[in-house]
């Protein structure tokens, strides 16, 4: 209890002092998470919607289980895979992304993408199949049918965004492997928590954890408000 109490006071102290190192860590955490999320959304939403709409897609019986498997990818395995790709001997080692935020973004995008893809696909599939037919009967083109169906499944798509965001902001294995937890360069909240725990600074580690949870809560609050507004009609 004493450690927990000290953690709260340390967290408040860190926030109160506007600690520059902490701000840097929080900034990098948000930067890596939000850029990875944006890329995953840009790729995952259209592809997920297309697969969700193409109910007679050849190979679908194999593709859907593959996507669901991707949704459960262990982050540390993704980290290892990305590490091998980006290492000097790796196929894209020339990019020089290992131990940089770019590499961390790549790893987190690989984790978030199947989540966005699979949950968007499921959301689009859950729309009544009569809707596309009735939209076509109103004169919609295939593209308009797809867009309308996607908009109608917006609550499910928002859930995909929330799930992907939650999985990568709290992820540690991949960013640790690919980023290396270098102070001032690739240290994010989760890797800082691991480091402080190893050093025995439990109160500071917990304080960082509280800040991480606070960040996740604030962002999810925004997503939730969006979801409520979308479900209003």
């Amino acid at each position, binding site marked *: 209890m004493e450690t927990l109490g000290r953690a709260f006071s340390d967290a408040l102290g860190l926030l109160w002092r506007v600690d520059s190192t902490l701000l840097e860590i929080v900034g990098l955490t948000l930067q890596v998470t939000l850029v990875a999320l944006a890329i995953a959304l840009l790729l995952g939403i259209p592809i997920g919607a297309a697969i969700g709409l193409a109910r007679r897609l050849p190979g679908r019986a194999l593709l859907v289980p593959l996507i669901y498997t991707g949704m459960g990818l262990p982050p540390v395995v993704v980290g290892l895979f990305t590490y091998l790709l980006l290492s000097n001997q790796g196929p894209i080692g020339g990019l020089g992304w290992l131990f940089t935020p770019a590499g961390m973004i790549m790893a987190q995008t690989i984790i978030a993408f199947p989540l966005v893809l699979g949950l968007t696909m499921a959301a689009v599939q859950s729309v*009544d199949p*009569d*809707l596309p*037919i*009735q*939209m*076509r*009967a*109103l*004169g*919609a*083109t295939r593209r*308009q049918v797809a867009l*309308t169906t996607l*908009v*109608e499944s917006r609550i499910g798509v928002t859930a995909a965004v929330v799930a992907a965001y939650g999985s990568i902001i709290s992820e540690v294995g991949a960013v640790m492997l690919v980023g290396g937890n270098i102070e001032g360069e690739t240290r994010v909240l989760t890797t800082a928590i691991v480091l402080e725990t190893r050093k025995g600074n439990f109160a500071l580690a917990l304080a960082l954890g509280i800040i991480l949870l606070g960040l996740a809560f604030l962002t999810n609050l925004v997503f939730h408000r969006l979801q409520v507004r*979308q*479900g*209003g*009609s």
Partner: protein
Amino acid sequence: MTPAYELTGIRHYYGERCVVNVPDLEINTGEILGIVGPSGAGKSTLLRLLNFLEVPTEGQIRYHGNLTTSDVSLETRREITTVFQRPMLLRRSVAANVRIGQRIRGTAPKDNSVDGWLDRLGLGELADAPVRTLSAGEAQRVALARALVVSPSVLLLDEPTGNLDPYNVGLIEEIVRADCAERGTTIVVVTHDLFQSRRIADRTALMINGRMLEIAETMRFFSDPQHPKTAAFLRGDLVY
């Protein structure tokens, strides 16, 4: 006047099963054609063919004299619309749903036409209401307004008043009849309600097992049926 539709040798299959078998059918421009028949007769599938939502497995459809191919132009498709028995409304307001056809066409929303149809269908006060708060009758009226606001040349109605109360049935029938009279809209209405066809249709057809057994002026269809199955169907006997 050129017929709105001329169907020749139409056979449409789902798998091995022939669901529509209409060797010859003309639908006149500006008429109301009622199609009655038991469930599973192929009536709704025929409407899908007429709306070019499906391509017939065999046969030809001429629309206003032009032979249609598997790739019907968007302009032609947009002259036709269907009101379904179970309308799928978008999770938006009533007015936004009624405006959707105009949005799809990229035409500037004419709020007066939307308001006009909402008022005519007794939905004026519900314009800003979310559709989830509507009753079945109100939802069906929204679906009808959504179809009529784009001024279709052909309006296809697939059991539009199934499960509705007499007030809503009467209102929808009145609007449909008036639209046909005012704008010359060609209307095909599929219905289980024999009396509905008798009330609004110029001609009535009986469809059983994908075949159109009889088609005649509505008065004659009901007073002097030529096919024994029509007579049996009108008596309320089970026909198949």
